[in-house]
């Protein structure tokens, strides 16, 4: 109320000019690497099924005018603003493109804060044939190119070993609890609500690598977000890879062997071929060695929806054009999503996202 100039941008004109220049450098990078710029629908009947991402829904009042093409169904009355362009882009890979990138807007409900805006700019790219390391190398190249800093790499397990002395892939909830007793642990972890995924709800999830009962996931997330993340990428950008299998999302999982201390047997566990980029404690990008198996995706979607239901959220459509396409065959590939506004923030030394957005939530 005190600020009567809400029609003006929150970002300085100087920052908006720098932002535009960064966008140019980004496009140049992709051009030099032979990537094709694409545009996929922002509004779609499909949406990413994530336990903690809430898409904006658009429900059309009446069936939209539609001249049916051969074999096409009329558009659904309920559509979603994309939380990322992942589905559309993967369908382009299925269609035959091999190196694509997109600069687009993504939308997430209830995400507003110093580092969040419910509408933000996402850069996403895919390259066929890339395994996790090839995709990490490309992300490191891009980061170095744009931020002019050499990039380091470590694993999720090494970070946990370093900070709390436990291997996150094999540690139990009790061990995680014990290792963090000196911190202010939130109530929802200490006294988890009785709303755990019950055996009836998890029926059909025979694949044990698909994750824990959700409680360990909560612990790992809290420890990572509260005790570790802030320290990451302080001197140089840092890429973290090999996340716990329960955080695979749309990444594939791989068997990994951990050598325990002398005498003890080796531990073989599954990790997600997922990686994230951190600069100054801020998460900038998230990448996957992409999951190809439609059955695993269907299973994960169902599990996520079971959790969403327990959380009191709506189930999201498990069927999708992507799932159909994956049955036809998604070529082996890796993909990365990068938050462009945050990249600009760290590039220009800004501390809030509103300094780089012209009209953030509250002024949009």
């Amino acid at each position, binding site marked *: 109320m005190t600020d009567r100039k809400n029609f003006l941008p929150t970002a300085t004109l100087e920052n908006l000019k720098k932002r535009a220049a960064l966008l140019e450098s980004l496009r140049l990078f992709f051009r030099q690497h032979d990537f094709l710029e694409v545009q996929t629908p922002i509004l779609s009947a499909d949406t990413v099924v994530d336990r*903690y991402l809430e898409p904006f829904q658009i429900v059309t009042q009446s069936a939209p005018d539609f001249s049916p093409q051969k074999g096409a169904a009329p558009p659904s009355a309920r559509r979603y603003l994309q939380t990322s362009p992942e589905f559309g882009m993967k369908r382009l890979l299925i269609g035959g493109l091999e190196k694509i990138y997109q600069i687009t807007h993504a939308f997430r409900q209830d*995400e*507003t804060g110093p580092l*969040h805006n419910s509408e933000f700019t996402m850069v996403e790219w895919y390259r066929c044939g890339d395994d996790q390391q090839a995709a990490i190398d490309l992300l490191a190249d891009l980061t170095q190119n744009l931020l002019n800093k050499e990039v380091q790499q470590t694993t999720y397990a090494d970070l946990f070993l370093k900070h709390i002395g436990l291997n996150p892939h094999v540690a139990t909830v009790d061990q995680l609890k014990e290792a963090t007793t000196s911190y*202010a642990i939130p109530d929802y972890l200490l006294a988890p609500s009785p709303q755990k995924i019950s055996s009836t709800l998890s029926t059909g999830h025979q694949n044990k690598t698909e994750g824990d009962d959700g409680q360990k996931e909560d612990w790992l*997330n809290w420890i*990572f977000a*509260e005790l570790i993340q802030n320290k990451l990428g302080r001197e140089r950008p840092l890429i973290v890879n090999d996340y716990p299998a329960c955080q695979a999302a749309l990444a594939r999982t791989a068997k990994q062997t951990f050598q325990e201390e002398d005498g003890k047997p080796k531990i073989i566990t599954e990790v997600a071929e997922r990686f994230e980029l951190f600069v100054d404690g801020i998460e900038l990008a998230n990448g996957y060695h992409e999951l190809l198996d439609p059955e695993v995706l269907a299973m994960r979607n169902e599990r996520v929806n079971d959790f969403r239901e327990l*959380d009191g959220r709506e189930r999201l459509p498990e069927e999708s054009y992507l799932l159909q396409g994956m049955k036809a065959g998604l070529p082996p590939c890796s993909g990365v999503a990068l938050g462009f506004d945050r990249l600009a923030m760290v590039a220009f030394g800004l501390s809030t996202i509103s300094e780089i957005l012209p009209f953030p939530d509250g002024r949009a």
Partner: protein
Amino acid sequence: MTTYKTSDFRKGLKVQINNEPYLMTEMNFVKPGKGNAFYKCKLKNLVRGTTLDRTYKGGETLESADVMEFTTQFLYKQGNTFVFMHRETFEQYELSADQVGDNWKYLMEGMPCQITLFNGNPILMDPPVQVELKVDFCEPGAKGNTATNVTKPVTVETGAEILCPIFIEMGNVIKVDTRTGAYVERVSTS
């Protein structure tokens, strides 16, 4: 009573935890790319003034606290009870000496005071930030000692003792900061 969802959390919200009212003085939204969102809150207990750090997960809820604040007039003290009157409704509210705490030192009849009700019961009383009080008694200041950093206790009209500069004399009116209990300035010398 309203239930606040984490997405409603913001600075200034009044909520109830363990049947006590809290004011949300800070709220930080943290949402990693994977996993749940966190709402890191600082909550000030409106009765005891203590601060609580709490982290909530997206989807958790807090009950609103039925907290009301308005200005009253201090009427009188009877035994251990302080009586205040709403300036518009003329309704009277009673607070115990415990609830009033050190603020008794500043209370003069007719003084405008802020009263906070929780679930209809008074829990807090705030006098004006600065009050003017007449000095009833003090030792004479040593002649010629003009140093301002030397203080002496004086007794004001409410019966409270306030530390004042040495030059303050009986009959002076002084201004006192009720948040700290500190002498601010001399208002008059009559």
